[in-house]
């Protein structure tokens, strides 16, 4: 059964995301050899999880893109991305066929984390239509139907718990 999108009128069509849970996310992350993590504007409660998650992605030789506001957010903590690109800019590059950074293998997983809900939704739609070879997940707690997998709108505490489980397992 499909999940109601976080913004409830955001129903794109009949192909919609499957419900993401900690175990599935762990499985997807373990399967992926070259994930691309795109970090946008985050909410306060997401920051600590994000820091750890970014490090995990880096550890597995993934690529981390910060949008400009995300870069400003993590500056004081000294966390640096591989690239700084706008949310629209990076998605446009992906829709044009961009698949790897120099010297690295092709991405096999896109992870969108942050950005305004509706902006992320539009970017996931672009990937859904124009970069069909890429698996795409949304990491925020807000359900994004244009992803392949997305959380089902759990409350903050529940989402934090799920993410902690994930971080302990990867």
């Amino acid at each position, binding site marked *: 059964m499909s999940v109601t999108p*976080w913004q409830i009128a955001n129903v794109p*069509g*009949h*192909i919609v995301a499957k419900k993401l849970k900690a175990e599935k996310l762990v499985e997807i992350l373990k399967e992926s050899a070259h994930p691309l993590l795109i970090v946008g504007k985050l909410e306060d409660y997401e920051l600590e999880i994000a820091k750890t998650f970014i490090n995990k992605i880096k550890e597995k030789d993934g690529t981390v893109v910060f949008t400009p506001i995300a870069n*400003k957010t993590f500056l004081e903590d000294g966390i640096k991305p591989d690239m700084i690109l706008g949310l*629209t800019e990076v998605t446009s590059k992906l829709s044009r066929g961009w698949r790897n950074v120099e010297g690295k293998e092709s991405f096999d997983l896109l992870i969108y984390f942050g950005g305004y809900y509706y902006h992320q939704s539009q970017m996931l739609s672009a990937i859904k*239509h124009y970069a069909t070879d890429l698996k795409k997940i949304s990491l925020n707690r807000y359900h994004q139907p244009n992803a392949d997998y997305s959380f089902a709108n759990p409350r903050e505490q529940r989402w934090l718990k799920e993410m902690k489980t994930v971080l302990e397992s990867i």
Partner: protein
Amino acid sequence: MGRKIKAKMGKLEIPALRAEDFEISIGSLVTTELDEVSGPTPFPKVEDLRGWDFKLLKRYPMFYAPFTDSCELCTFGKCDLTAGKRGACGIDTSAQQGRIILLACCIGVSCHAAHGRHLLDYYIEKYGRNIPISMGEGVNIEAPVTRLVCGIKPETIGDLEEPMEYVEEQITQLLAAVHTGQEGSALDFESKALHAGMLDLLAMELADIVQIAALGFPKADPEAPLIELGYGVINVEKPVILCVGHNVAPGAEIMDYLETMGQEDNIEVCAICCTAIDMSRYRKTAKVVGSMSHQLKFIRSGVPDVVVVDEQCIRANIPEEAAKIGAPVIATTAKVCYGFPDMTEEDPDKIVEGFASGKLPGAVIFDEEKVGEVAVKTALKLAPLRQKKKTIPSDEEFKEFIDLCIECGRCRRVCPNDLKIPYAMKAGKEGDYEPLAKLFDHCLGCLRCEQECPKDIPIMGLITKADERRTKTLKFKMRAGRGAISDVEIRAVGSAIVLGEIPGVLGVVGCMNYPETEQDVPNLIREFARRRYIITTSGCAAMDTGWQLNEEGQCLYEEYPGDFDASGIVNVGSCVSNSNIAGAAIKIAAIFARRPLKNNFEEIADYILHRVGACGVAWGAMSQKAASIATGFNRIGVPVVIGPHGSKYRRSFMGDKDDDSKWQVFNARTGEKTYIGPAPEHLLYPAESLEEAVPLIAKLCIRANDTTKGRQIKLAHYVDLHKRYIGTFPDDIHYFVRSESDIPKTVMHEIQEHLAKFDWKPTPIPDPTLLERLVRKPKT
């Protein structure tokens, strides 16, 4: 192209002739032809500028982010277009996106054209065709878009009929292409959308010229009066008339009637949206409540005694909300009738009686003068009866409603801005009303939260109540819309703009669909004004520009001058006045570079794209009009940055700085193909945040033909803004350094270090053009 004249008389009797159903046609009357050499595209059809569009779209291809996966425009559907599938008519998702964008642009241009047509017909009927067109002292190019597109020099408002007919005819052609089984190519849909955008620039110019000429608005006046703005400037002790919309005609008649009756000191006339801007151009006593998001908040405050609506961006539920405060609604145009009875022929006093008795909640009156009389009489009669009845909860109700909240969160999930209403309600239950009050500036006033609430809590009312003490006292200033930029001003700054010494000209325009608050607009403008950019603004953005006070209690319009010069903040006026911003870019080409305007769209657009460091910013773009305006600016070579809500327009025009082949131009001096770098890099870009938008805007003011000194200045701002807003040195600076001389001294070391990491080589500065016909010395 001449103007066709057709006259028809039912009966004609003169001594020598008696005729019935007499009809006379004159093939063509030549209007005021512009006395200069004509370019190749008089009154262009879409196919005439298709070549230019394709050049633009090759450099800035579409990036589509579909809003939905399906098409439901015909009974073949719904058709699933996901990931390469085609609909029953054969259309694919890219073409469908282009089709919807064309539709949006057609809606946008239709609004401005219909608005302009109404003004034109109304003022011709009222004052005649011969009202002279004068756009102000020092303005010789009175109608730059009209000259560029139609090749005529209008002298009276009657001369505007011909270009208006052209716009109307072209809209029909474009709209036809949206029908099932017509166009099938995304590129061609976009070319048509660009055409609609250009028509919109023309329609807006015609509309603004009519109202400036007929109503004597400020004319290119940098010192146009400062207008009172905000909830706190309205004297609630007086009867209040509120006008909402975009068409000044009914509002102007209200003020005329007040003056005729000597009642101007006894009644407050205020307005919301562009009508407010244009009424304050007519009379500086008209007060501006604010932008579109204040419509229902202000009505619920109970202040207005009568609400007069005209057209565009008017909330569809104004009648319901006005009825709750006992204020009747007068609809004044056929575009917005709300199902009210047509009382145009009724005695004004009877209409007022109906309103006062409560039997008549609203009326349509298609007679602007009668609207003036009825609105004034209604306000006078109803004010003592209504006693400013409001629907914002009382202190007791406020607490009771908050306690009803079960924190289900449905309000948040329908809020366009995902506002954390449940959190604020929870804090309210604990006696902390600050979180609720803080939502006021973020709230778009759409009421989706209230209709979703299972407990029927008037959520927007609670937000308004929580912040009422502050909002009631809000007092700001906005400079009245001045219309055109004068030729004298263009002459004075043209060189500094083209050579890059004034780092850019920004057009900060558009609606109020901000991702955060309206404070983003004054914050953004302040950043660029203090860096000597020229800021032009209009519409809701112009109001929000004034919606902030500095430590000395001054708003930006008081802090910075109103002239078109470095650090100037220029309010051109309402939505239709956006044409004056395009007009300024066109005039730079015509006056500074002496490029011929007449029917010469491609050459002027090519000039602007490569030489005029202008960038549009529509941070809160919401409407179809905003889509067509932005698309018009794009066609004329001006890039536009929109806010994140703008991603829902579905389409961006994105350059690829890594693809050198996209940045090749002709060097007009030699005919050689030459690399110019990605300047400007994008043509339409939805930015996520101000952190992204501010450095990007600075970057999009870079042009191929900047002098080395100009490029130094632009790069210095780009580097500085990138560091301040993103926190790092920009990693793409090597794309914009053409020679060592381009490097600003303040960051020379950093840039040289950066260049050393790349295989950077100097590139020549050509005389850039995308049009081979402009090559002066063809390659042999």
